[in-house]
């Protein structure tokens, strides 16, 4: 009666027994695999988490948003303003021209921004706040909500009214539980009336909107910043699928206003971006980073594999007499090969499993910390990652265990039995 089950079970059991007999050495041997696998998993976890965070932030903003930045930039590179350079080529009037449906038919709203920071005080309470000069369209474009009071009107913007709408964090910092509506606050030694408080919104595209004080943009430009230009405008269009048409319309409108005749775009003093485009760039950057780091981690698997080969060669030498005996009672070359291959695969499998546990635990801790810090950092255990880690570690065992196993299987039984 033939039974492979008993045979295979005995081979696995025998490998387990030898591993348990040398527990410490087995663990040391697997260290390379443990480090390699956990590194790959942690890197992937961080990559996926960061990507999820960024994509989540940008999506919150809305995928039918376009950004118009002053200064030309390569469509795939960072905008010039990101380097801290002020470029003065965009104006409030440009924004109003983009808002004109005759110029850009798909437009729903446009917000020009002029930003800065200043000390804000009320009855001796002071805080450093970010000022965001924007237009009435802010609510329609960015999707904020007014909690109490109201947002400023177009007329107030035009008339340089000294009115302010507070982000929820600024409100609680200055006013605590007091009702701020109708109160006068000081911004750069000028008195502003608080007319509204925004609903708490949290992080959107890495900006904490709750820490802003919103002012009419004309007030901001003329009374506080003393500038004519705007830092950025955001354009909301009716549908994501009209992105290309809208971008084209915006470019044509601005070129006309700026007297740019060059149709290649090389002379543009502004750039138009879509959120979808930004997502693609971010994803491709983080993906490249992930693959690179995962490749580095894979190198440590290679080093781990060489360690496994070394140890297995030592084991073959130590168990030469045992190999001779097994052959004497009828083990074929393939039986011996299987013995050692199963052992090396099981060693690397143990390393892989420990690596997975460490890697996922660390990834989870990172996610916990990031979430505690207020980031929307997702943590997911991907079955594919686990499968891949298990597969790769077993493959390392197979690959690097093969040579020692073949060496063992080729021992002459007679010489192996005589080995001292």
């Amino acid at each position, binding site marked *: 009666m033939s*039974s492979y089950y008993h045979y295979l079970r005995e081979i696995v059991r025998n490998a387990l027994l030898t591993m348990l007999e040398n527990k410490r050495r087995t663990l040391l041997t697997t260290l390379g695999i443990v480090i390699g696998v956990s590194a790959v998993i942690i890197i992937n976890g961080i990559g996926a988490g960061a990507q999820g965070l960024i994509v989540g932030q940008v999506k919150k903003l809305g995928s039918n948003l376009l950004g118009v930045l002053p200064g030309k930039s390569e469509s795939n590179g960072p905008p010039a303003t990101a380097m801290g350079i002020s470029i003065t080529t965009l104006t409030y009037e440009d924004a109003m021209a983009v808002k004109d449906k005759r110029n850009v038919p798909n437009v729903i709203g446009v917000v020009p921004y002029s930003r800065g920071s200043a000390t804000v005080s009320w009855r001796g309470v002071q805080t450093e706040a970010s000022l965001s000069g924007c237009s009435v369209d802010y609510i329609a474009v960015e999707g904020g909500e007014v909690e109490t009071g109201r947002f400023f009107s177009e007329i107030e913007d035009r008339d340089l009214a000294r009115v302010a709408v507070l982000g929820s964090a600024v409100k609680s910092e200055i006013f605590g539980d007091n009702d701020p509506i109708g109160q006068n606050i000081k911004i750069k030694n000028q008195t502003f009336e608080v007319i509204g408080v925004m609903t708490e919104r949290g992080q959107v595209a890495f900006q904490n909107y709750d820490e802003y004080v919103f002012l009419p943009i004309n007030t901001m430009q003329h009374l506080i910043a003393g500038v004519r230009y705007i830092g950025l405008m955001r354009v909301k269009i009716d549908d994501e699928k009209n992105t290309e048409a809208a971008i084209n319309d915006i470019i044509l409108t601005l070129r006309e206003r700026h007297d740019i005749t060059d149709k290649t775009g090389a002379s543009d003093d502004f750039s138009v971006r879509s959120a979808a485009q930004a997502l693609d760039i971010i994803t491709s950057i983080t993906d490249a980073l992930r693959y690179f780091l995962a490749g580095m981690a894979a190198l440590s698997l290679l080093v781990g594999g060489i360690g496994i080969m070394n140890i297995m060669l030592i084991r073959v030498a130590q168990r030469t007499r045992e190999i001779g005996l097994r*052959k*004497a*009672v009828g083990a074929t070359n393939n039986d011996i090969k299987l013995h050692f291959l199963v052992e090396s695969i099981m060693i690397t499998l143990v390393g892989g499993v420990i690596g997975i546990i460490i890697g996922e635990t660390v990834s989870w801790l990172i996610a916990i910390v990031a979430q505690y810090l207020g980031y929307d950092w997702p943590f997911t255990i991907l079955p594919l990652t686990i499968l891949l880690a298990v597969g790769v570690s077993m493959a390392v065992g197979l690959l690097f265990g093969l040579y020692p196993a073949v060496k063992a299987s080729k021992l002459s039984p007679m010489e192996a039995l005589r080995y001292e």
Partner: protein
Amino acid sequence: MSKQQLANKPLIEVRDLIKDYGEGELITKVLFGVSFQVFQGDFVAIMGPSGSGKSTLMHILGFLDKATGGQYLFEGHNVTGLDDDALAIMRNQRIGFVFQSFNLLPRTTVLENVMLPLVYARNKKVDAVKAATAVLESVGLGHRLDYYTNQISGGEKQRVAIARALVNQPAVIFADEPTGNLDSKSGIQIMRILQDLNEQGNTIILVTHETSTGEHAKRIIRIKDGKLESDKPVAKRRLAKNEDTLAK
């Protein structure tokens, strides 16, 4: 009835067996054309001083090594050119070995050691346990089945080895200096078991350099310098059941 009548064909027949090691200038000849026959039910002692080639002869007969010249017929078949896998199957199915140094597996029980040949034969576990238990009982170790091999005495270890050699019901049992690592009292027990097994019809080939041990066999083949020196029946056979200790 004579042995020849019991089985008209020899179980083992070697003709001009030659074995040399190495190549070219460095060639070392170990066996120079050895010929003899062993029949079913025989108990042969292969004797000779160390370096005579007796161990090499046993390794070739036991399929652990290959001859470089001559012919080897086993159970009537020419087995001279068999490959590694075929040799492994022969060792597994037709041969049982008992070694001087026992060669039991560490960290394994007595029962598991005896089951080992049946594992490689892909036997079902129930069948293997049954067969191994039966042979262990026959060598008086029925009470040691679950002992680990480091928990039993030298004599018991060699009895486990004999049980392992018997478990696949081999055609021949090779015993290579089976009493060499044992005290004289344990040694005589082992010789008695071998003689009993021979009485039950098992063919045994014993390799030893001790004349007193060899005289427990029915026939002694003497090897010297790689050649057959003599092949004679034992004139005054020793019977282990009448002895207390193994004379050395």
